[in-house]
């Protein structure tokens, strides 16, 4: 009791219902990032400290050959070359990552749908090498794949049409878009994407990562300014770096920080010469995959209009997953899609295909690096995108698309509410289908992953360096393909494992939801 009061001062719950731009939002914007409890932070640091000490000890033993060394070694003839890797670069990999390596890279051998089959792997030398026992773990509930609308399936209209196209067109294209790789299918798909988003034209590429890294350099160059969010994805950072412009970072989703940077930039111009900037580009993402937060789009657009900057929106996770019609974060907030200058997204997550798209195109058709040098997309993949997009838009005559979008929204809200009630710390916006659950301590990362797998649930755990060092987390990706039974089963297992590993850190007492009116169509809350 006393300890609770002692640590309650570190508790902090942030609700952003009204800010100075409150009138821009047509629904309440609720995000929460509960602060790390002090005791947990201290224990986490201690945990890392102990692991580091052991790491040094093991390195010492390996160096003096007392312990067997499993790492691959340089060739004999090349021993006197400059070493390819510095020892300390790999310290983290050798000593911390190797211990829990089996939580990642788990091979699957079925459709990555709501349930999947995993190949069982065993390691006899503490994760240095893996062997496949040959057994398959069946029907593992998949909470890790990016399958928001459930289009990762091998039956159904999408798969059938993709099969047809495979037999007709083959699999490869063997040429670039500008030379001879522009099939009519590509043109059809691009027109469809443009219609889906409500923009004039769109262009598609073979890889989402490459879309960002190759097109930002085509849009901005030296003498321009890029304002990018703290937690932007690596592809955006790489694209910004390759473009050669100046990059300034503003705090995550913090509009005051962004406004300050904009004002300073326009008033003072380029550093040292004080010449005015040629262009200012604000780069944000729709949903941030590690935090689960949604960008404050109406505020960003208001700022952009006021200061005449350009906006680049990366909807990798939010396209298909947010909004009443599944059109992404633009739809979710109800803003005009013409206000966003460049919208970028990926097909991998919601459409079950592979690749990325971008709009604002005529210029890019001639200047994008990818259009000139990289091969175009594979025809069956294109077909899958066409059919799934038609399905979401409702153009194929059924209401499957609408159903799925609605199902996803319900699933998300339900899952988040239940997890909150159980007492876990969940980050992010209440409507985002990406749900990070905090684990903090390094040992619990591995333990959580393994315990969940033992109980037939596949989850994704992330630690350093993708997240700050003490904020390691497990990330759940909800899908429209998950039924209520699957969610309930997953929740009960998570609760069990949470009790086992003492993961219920939250200090919040559950309050009745004041923000949303009670809706008879939603799932009933179950008291546990």
């Amino acid at each position, binding site marked *: 009791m006393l300890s609770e009061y002692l640590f309650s001062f570190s508790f902090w719950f942030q609700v952003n219902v009204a800010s100075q731009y409150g009138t821009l939002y047509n629904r309440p914007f609720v995000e929460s990032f509960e602060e790390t409890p002090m005791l947990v932070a201290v224990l986490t640091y201690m945990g890392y400290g102990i692991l580091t000490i052991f790491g040094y000890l093991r390195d010492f033993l390996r160096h003096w050959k007392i312990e067997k060394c499993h790492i691959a070694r340089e060739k004999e003839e090349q021993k006197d070359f400059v070493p390819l890797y510095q020892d300390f670069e790999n310290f983290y990999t050798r000593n911390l990552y190797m211990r829990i390596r089996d939580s990642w890279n788990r091979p699957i051998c079925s459709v990555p749908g709501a349930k999947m089959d995993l190949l069982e792997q065993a390691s006899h030398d503490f994760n240095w090498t893996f062997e496949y026992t040959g057994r398959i773990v069946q029907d593992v509930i998949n909470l890790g794949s990016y399958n928001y609308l459930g289009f990762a399936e091998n039956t159904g209209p999408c798969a059938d049409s993709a099969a047809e196209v495979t037999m007709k067109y083959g699999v490869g294209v063997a*040429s670039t878009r500008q030379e001879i790789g522009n099939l009519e299918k590509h043109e059809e798909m691009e027109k469809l994407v443009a219609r889906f988003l409500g923009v004039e034209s769109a262009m598609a590429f*073979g890889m989402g990562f490459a879309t960002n890294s190759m097109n930002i350099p085509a849009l901005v160059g030296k003498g321009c300014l890029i304002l990018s969010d703290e937690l932007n*994805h690596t592809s955006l950072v790489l694209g910004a770096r390759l473009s050669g412009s100046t990059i300034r970072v503003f705090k995550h989703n913090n509009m005051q920080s962004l406004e300050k940077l904009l004002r300073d930039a326009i008033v003072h111009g380029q550093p040292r010469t004080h010449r005015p900037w040629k262009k200012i580009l604000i780069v944000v993402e729709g949903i941030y995959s590690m935090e689960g937060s949604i960008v404050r789009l109406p505020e960003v657009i208001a700022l952009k209009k006021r200061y005449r900057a350009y906006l680049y929106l990366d909807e990798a996770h939010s396209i298909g997953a947010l909004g009443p019609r599944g059109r992404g974060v633009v739809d979710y907030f109800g803003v005009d899609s013409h206000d966003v200058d460049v919208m970028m997204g990926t097909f991998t997550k919601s459409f079950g295909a592979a690749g990325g798209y971008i709009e604002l195109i005529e210029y890019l058709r001639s200047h994008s690096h990818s259009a000139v040098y990289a091969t175009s997309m594979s025809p069956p993949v294109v077909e899958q995108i066409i059919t799934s997009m038609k399905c979401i838009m409702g153009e194929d005559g059924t209401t499957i698309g609408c159903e799925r979008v609605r199902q996803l929204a319900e699933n998300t809200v339900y899952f988040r509410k239940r997890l909150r009630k159980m007492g876990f710390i969940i980050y992010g916006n209440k409507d985002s289908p990406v749900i990070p659950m905090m684990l903090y301590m390094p040992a619990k990362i591995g333990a959580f992953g393994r315990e969940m797998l033992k109980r037939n649930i*596949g989850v994704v755990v992330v630690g350093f360096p993708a997240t700050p060092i003490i904020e390691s987390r497990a990330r759940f990706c909800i899908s429209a393909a998950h039924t209520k039974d699957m969610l309930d089963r997953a929740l009960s297992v998570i609760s069990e494992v949470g009790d086992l590993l003492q993961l219920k850190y939250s200090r919040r007492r559950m309050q009745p939801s004041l923000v949303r009116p009670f809706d008879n169509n939603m799932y009933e809350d179950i008291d546990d």
Partner: protein
Amino acid sequence: NMASGQQWVLVEMVQAFYEAPAYHLILEGILILWIIRLVFSKTYKLHETSKLTEKEKEDLIEEWQPEPLVSKDHPSLSYDVVTGPPSHKIIINGKECINFASFNFLGLLDNERVKVSALASLKKYGVGTCGPRGFYGTFDVHLELETHLAKFMKTEEAIIYSYGFATIASAIPAYSKRGDIIFVDEAACFSIQKGLQASRSLIKYFKHNDMEDLERLLKEQELEDHKNPRKARVTRKFIVVEGLYINTADICPLPKLVKLKYKYKVRIFLEESMSFGVLGEHGRGVTEHFGINIEDIDLISANMENAVASIGGFCCGRSFVIDHQRLSGQGYCFSASLPPMLAAAAIEALSIMEEDPDIFTVLREKCKHVYKALEGTPGLKLVGVPFAPALHLQLERSLGSRDADMQLLRTIVDHCLERRVALTLARYLEKDERFLPPPR
């Protein structure tokens, strides 16, 4: 008692004050004055060296006009539209032509076996993988393809990327960081250039296929190293070359490169996009062509979009080198994995290549045939070695400006299209290429 104790201390202090030397007192006095000054002076920020009032700031913000996001004055490019499958006969803009323009070297784009295996994989896995390799995006087909590739190339390990362009562009920055040195051929392709740019290392270009120039650069570097041995011990050095160059269609002199490697202690990265599946008795590429031990090359990278008619790319080499990319190759860790049907198609294509090594001889014969036939064309120069499957036809005499040359070449291509032969104009991004090849 306390008061007298204090008094006694005070007396001591005053005594010390009187007994101290003069310079000591003056120094202390100056220090005290300096501290007082620092405490009371205002700190200043570098930004506000020019003091602007609020109104002036507002005016500046009002006046500032950015450039348009994209400039409107660019020639609009209309793509040729291809209907129907791109194989030996291709339908461009409605006309059926013989296809001399795709990189379909072994003719596997149309192969029934490849299509059937892709179909089977589609039925089993669906189309997409819905995740990066680390998070349930690794399928058993990926692992199978990696082992198959490693066995085919006789190396220890291979790693697969989902996009050909990203393969070498992610591999180079994984090993070479700021402060390292890379020696690159001038005719390197664009993806290598992007990889070099992303790595932030020091780049030194040597003339195309000119080993003396490379040796000169290496010797210069050696002299630098002698001057600064401590720095030299941590600076890694790499040579990046292509097996068969896309831009000039000739081969790099690999035996000489290997000799240089051991003499000057640099590592070799070999990019084999055009030569994989083309050169060598069994199609293993330029190392087999010259008979060099594959262990001598540190990293071989290739994309599967040319001979192996699939999509994606791979790197192969020793485990010591390749394993590092699994955690630090950006295109590998942060991007969705290759769709399983494309991986299955690649496995099937590899099997076909293994079973039937005669197709490579057939390909070489045909290349020589075409080379001889095109050699004497008036007005056009043929660039490339006889057994290269992708040849370049260049204008012998330039018309003066690049645009005029491109126009003329475009008319030639159109003329060929009329006559039912599909050629293509090699496209380059004019502003971004480092050494722009002449129009061809």
